[in-house]
């Protein structure tokens, strides 16, 4: 069965390491914060200028001057720091964030990612996404493997305008965990009960299937 949103977040959380500074994009990536393994500490970076983002505030704690990059009211954790947008993106662009998790429309075998613009639809902007994908060494893209109409989002070449070129190495879909190497997707893990054949049939880009593709366990 395809992974639920929560399972996607849980699987991503296994990539966390103690002491990681992490930037989580809007949507499913945000859920990763709920699955930080016991005994491990990570610190969340929000690109509007906050390192050490905490939980949502209680009614009593709400402060209009304390929001995250999704414009949601938040709190700070102990040891947080707050700074300008220039400093925030210095961190991001300079590669100081250990892990970035974000969604996408398409990724391809060259590590290209398209996530911000669908021609013909209103373009709202890239926000910080282009900086995040260009700045991070370690990025996990989370997305559904195929569109509602069954069209693969894992391509030989992205069809949509790019967010970044050659910057993605890890993709987690609702069906599989894949790595991108030397111009191909490599199937590393599959969702519980999802067959290799199904993944192959829903992957348009070049896919390498190792002899053994373990099932994820939850």
């Amino acid at each position: 069965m395809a992974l639920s949103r929560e399972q996607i977040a849980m699987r991503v959380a296994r990539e966390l390491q103690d002491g990681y500074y992490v930037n989580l994009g809007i949507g499913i990536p945000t859920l990763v914060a709920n699955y930080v393994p016991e005994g491990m500490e990570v610190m969340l970076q929000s690109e509007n200028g906050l390192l050490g983002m905490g939980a949502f505030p209680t009614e009593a704690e709400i402060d209009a001057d304390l929001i995250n990059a999704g414009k949601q009211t938040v709190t700070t954790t102990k040891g947080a720091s707050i700074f300008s947008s220039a400093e925030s993106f210095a961190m991001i662009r300079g590669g100081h964030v250990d892990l970035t998790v974000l969604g996408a429309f398409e990724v391809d075998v060259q590590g290209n990612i398209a996530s911000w613009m669908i021609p013909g639809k209103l373009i709202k902007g890239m926000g910080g996404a282009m900086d995040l994908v260009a700045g991070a060494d370690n990025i996990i893209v989370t997305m559904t493997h195929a569109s509602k109409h069954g069209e693969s989002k894992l391509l030989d070449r992205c069809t949509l305008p790019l967010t970044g070129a050659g910057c993605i190495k890890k993709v987690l879909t609702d069906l599989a965990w894949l790595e991108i190497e030397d111009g191909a997707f490599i199937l590393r893990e599959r969702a519980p009960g999802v067959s290799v054949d199904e993944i192959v049939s829903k992957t348009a880009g070049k896919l390498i299937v190792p002899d053994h593709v373990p099932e994820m366990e939850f």
Partner: protein
Amino acid sequence: MAGFDKVVNSYEEAMAGLESGMTVIAGGFGLCGIPENLIAQIKQMQVKDLTIVSNNCGVDGFGLGILLEDQQIRKMVSSYVGENALFEKQLLDGELEVELTPQGTLAEKMRAGGAGIPAFYTATGFGTPVAEGKEVREFNGRSYILEESITGDFAIVKGWKADRYGNVIYRHTAQNFNPMAATAGKITVVEVEEIVEPGELDPTQIHTPGIYVDRLIVGSFEKRIEQRTVRKA
């Protein structure tokens, strides 16, 4: 006003000299840390054909969104827009131009503008529509694009506290783009919640030194919240 006292007593005075066709750099992220009253003053002045450099364009009826009501904005330079219907309509009608700029590049362009750096290279946007028409150059085997800095005729900034000399500190994430905006205006106007006497702020804890600030005014703020998210106590 004598010496370094930057305090002005009216919003008219704060924005005096702003004319149609000018470029205004605004601090703020979403509706957080936006110079609400300076924006309202721009609306009141009814200047037109403005180029506004700001990460976002407010919402319908609040923040920079109110400048759309009378079509005062000709061009927005932003990383994320379209949180309001009027913006969308004017964009589709071709009444409004948008130059979408990655958020980090936008912050750096403002900083560079204020810091006398005319241009810099960044990997952000390489291989994307943002790179169109821009020089690409390799450094250490990686490709970067050339981005030019931004300066404005005016910068409008929202601070928390300032002393009369214009030394400003910001509150929490209401800092965001404000410090860079403050450096990049020919005339920089800062509105704050409280003005204190020089010497009351710790010199090592100033976010925006007074040298960048031309005019300072104290105002009161609605501080509208865009996404009110709470947990149970």
